[in-house]
């Protein structure tokens, strides 16, 4: 092969603040190949693809496309050279028809007037080419199932002039048959000379579909190899980097024998029949790939989503029940620090005081419905001091704080309220190292005081460092629970992927 590879990246780096999410990634993808990109959560796969398709700018490094320097400024400039990306989240407009979505950027028109017949004619041709004969071009996209929507999204990308196609977890919402159809199309496209970069957690798919595999770990390039020369076990070993494990700080357990919370056969949406026990003073980690049902599990326990079956039993509530509103869960002694503090954890435009005392206004900070503002200020100040929250003053709105300090407020409000069992969903996402350490110490001190903590995290290192036991979720089920003395990164990774390896 004398022609240069279709896409080359050299030392690509992406920093968010002081955090490196991608460092020094050098790889290349050829035309006419399906190139799989694999790695654990947070390995940098999606970020790499966003940089290639111009959705986010790189902080450093260079790229070459088709031998020429390539420096996309936005999605349009990547599309103009022939790069199309299909992201995990759908980008369709639900109320518009399939045909309109397919040709949204170039609707056939004459002087601004839509040419409906041409539009549907062209759309029909595109859909037929991908075997989507069952989809009617006039239907509104929102009335299609998620699988079909995904297929329309992919068809939209392919309908445009495309030399390099990037697919980020395209099969997450597809059924087995739909996936197989998709793979056929992808193979056909490859044979036509299109380069394809394919991200997936499903290693069996990757093994059967791809020609070469690039493995990323912690934002770094690990290796590119021919698929044929690798087993899925080897992939997992490379992704987990067992040999590169860092030293773990000394761990002390505060676990007691008494059970604080018994969860029985919770079934809620995607979550399927999950049972586990948490003891007083225990730090119980839950890991798994994104989409394995971890957040859904916590929400079902907390009553944020109504579970279809199951029971939650706490020390104060002996006969198991399901909570239908978070208020019931809180009354029974639960607290939940949510994953997305902006969406549902904090009142961003309100002050530190308001946020800190929100859960505990009744009865702690009021008498006869009247607020005890002096008490509120006192507690908010002491929380700010204790958690080392950086702020100007406690009247400051929480939205003006940095992510780590916002998270401290989100936790503080539950510390003020107090609970027996604390549920933490991604407690350190997007937080700098210092704040992260502070939050680990905080969780440790909760354990020391006999509180049970359930910690959901995508960051395995975090759980290995803090937890007494780690449970692994995969495909909506809790597949295995490891105790501290028996776990290894590789075993946990293996369990995480267990449902996806045939």
């Amino acid at each position, binding site marked *: 092969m004398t022609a240069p590879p279709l896409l080359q990246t050299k030392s690509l780096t992406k920093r968010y603040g002081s955090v490196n999410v991608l460092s020094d990634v050098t790889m290349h993808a050829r035309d006419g190949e399906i190139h799989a990109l694999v790695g654990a959560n947070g390995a940098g796969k999606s970020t790499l693809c966003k940089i290639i398709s111009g959705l986010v700018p790189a902080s450093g490094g260079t790229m070459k496309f088709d031998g020429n320097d390539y420096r996309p400024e936005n999605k349009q400039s990547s599309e103009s050279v022939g790069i199309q990306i299909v992201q995990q989240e759908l980008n369709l407009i639900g109320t518009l028809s399939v045909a309109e979505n397919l040709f949204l950027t170039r609707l056939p028109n004459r002087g601004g007037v839509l040419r409906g017949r041409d539009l549907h004619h062209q759309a029909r041709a595109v859909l037929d080419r991908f075997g989507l004969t069952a989809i009617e071009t006039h239907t509104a996209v929102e009335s299609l199932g998620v699988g079909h929507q995904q297929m329309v999204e992919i068809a939209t990308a392919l309908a445009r002039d495309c030399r390099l196609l990037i697919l980020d977890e395209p099969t997450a919402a597809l059924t087995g048959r739909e996936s197989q159809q998709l793979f056929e199309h992808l193979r056909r496209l490859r044979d036509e000379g299109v380069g394809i970069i394919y991200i997936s957690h499903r290693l069996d798919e990757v093994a059967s579909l791809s020609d070469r595999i690039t493995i990323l770990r912690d934002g770094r390039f690990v290796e590119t190899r021919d698929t044929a020369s690798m087993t899925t076990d080897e992939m997992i070993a490379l992704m987990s980097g067992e040999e590169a494990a860092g030293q773990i700080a000394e761990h002390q357990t505060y676990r007691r024998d008494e059970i604080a919370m018994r969860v029985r056969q919770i079934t809620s949406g995607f979550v399927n029949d999950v049972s586990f026990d948490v003891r007083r003073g225990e730090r119980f980690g839950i890991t798994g790939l994104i989409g394995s049902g971890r957040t859904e599990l916590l929400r079902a326990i907390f009553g944020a989503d109504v579970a279809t079956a199951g029971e939650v039993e706490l020390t104060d509530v002996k006969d198991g029940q399901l909570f239908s509103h978070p208020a019931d869960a809180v009354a029974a002694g639960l607290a939940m620090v949510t994953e997305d503090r902006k969406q549902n954890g904090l009142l961003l435009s309100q002050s530190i005081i308001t946020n800190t005392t929100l859960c505990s*206004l009744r009865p702690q900070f009021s008498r006869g419905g009247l607020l005890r503002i002096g008490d509120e200020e006192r507690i908010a100040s002491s929380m*700010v001091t204790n958690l*080392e929250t*950086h702020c*100007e*003053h406690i009247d400051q709105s929480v939205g003006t704080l940095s992510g780590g300090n916002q998270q401290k407020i989100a936790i503080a409000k539950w510390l003020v309220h107090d609970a027996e069992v604390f549920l933490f969903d991604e407690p350190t996402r997007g937080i700098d190292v210092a704040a992260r*350490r502070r939050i680990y110490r905080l969780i440790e001190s909760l354990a020391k005081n006999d509180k049970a903590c359930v910690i959901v995290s995508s960051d395995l290192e975090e759980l290995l460092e803090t937890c007494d036991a780690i449970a692994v979720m995969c495909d909506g089920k809790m597949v295995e629970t490891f105790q501290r003395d028996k776990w290894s990164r590789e075993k946990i990774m293996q369990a995480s992927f267990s449902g996806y390896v045939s």
Partner: protein
Amino acid sequence: MESRKDHAGFVLRVRFVKQSKWLQIGIQYGGLIAVLALLIAVFSACSKNFLQPATLLTIANQIPDLTFLAVGMTLVLIVGGIDLSVGSLLALSSAILGVLMANYGWPIWAAFGIAMLVAGLCGTINGAISVGWGIPSFIVTLGMLEIARGATKVVTSSQSVYIGSQVEWFGQPIASLRLSPAFLIAVLAVIVGQFVLTRTVFGRYCVAIGTNKEAVRMSGIRATPYAIAVFAISGLMCGMAGLAQTSRLSTADPNGAVGIELAAIAACVIGGTSLMGGRGSVVSSFIGVLIIQVLQTGLAQIGVSDANKQIITGSVIVLAVLLDALRNRLSHRS
């Protein structure tokens, strides 16, 4: 130990003392009061008669209706809703009052009690449907606007009902104070409203719901009853406004108070209440009412035609909101 190192530089900067209370009040109300003072100054310069006790007392005795409505509207806007039915509910409670007193000879307290009951019930229905079923309050209260107006016409057979002196005392100035009971009670409503908003659990929850309903739910708080109660309060304020208007006009007019909901919303928005919810102050809305009324009276006094009055009033509303947006942007930057 480690965190000491990380934080040493910052901990010193933390200041827990709040800004001084007077400074806060100055920041919060300074701009509005300046606008009000400016308007008064302009009209005083244009017309010798403006800055006379008589004019100011007239203004004071004209604003109770709008003030009551603005108190309720502020709370509704703060929880992220809107209440378009207030004008019709005012007219409905006025009609009930009129018909019961004039046609059936009921005493004022009994007739007023029924009027309040009906207005409160209509407000509760607004809240129950919009909050309980998650339907935009814009639509629900728009429906109530039509329903209540229709009901008003049914109750009065579309005729004005003259009541007379039995009801007039409420809107007439008390001799020694030269202010009407209606005005005094309206001011009391403003004070109580502001107190409820800033000093009670109920008020705090209202602000929280308007800021982020989902976060409130995830904090283990059942928000629905609070939000419904806010619409009920708005309904009750319509009942009060109905009494105030009826007493001022001695008459229940089935076609009265059309479009007053927009004036109430304008007063709140001039006062800096956010249409997106989560931010607002009853006192500021009251100053908004004063600004609107001073503008109306002042323009009338210097002989501006009705048409031009409308144009100017509209411009002032947009200008006030623009200024508020500008102020926000500046304070966010700093």
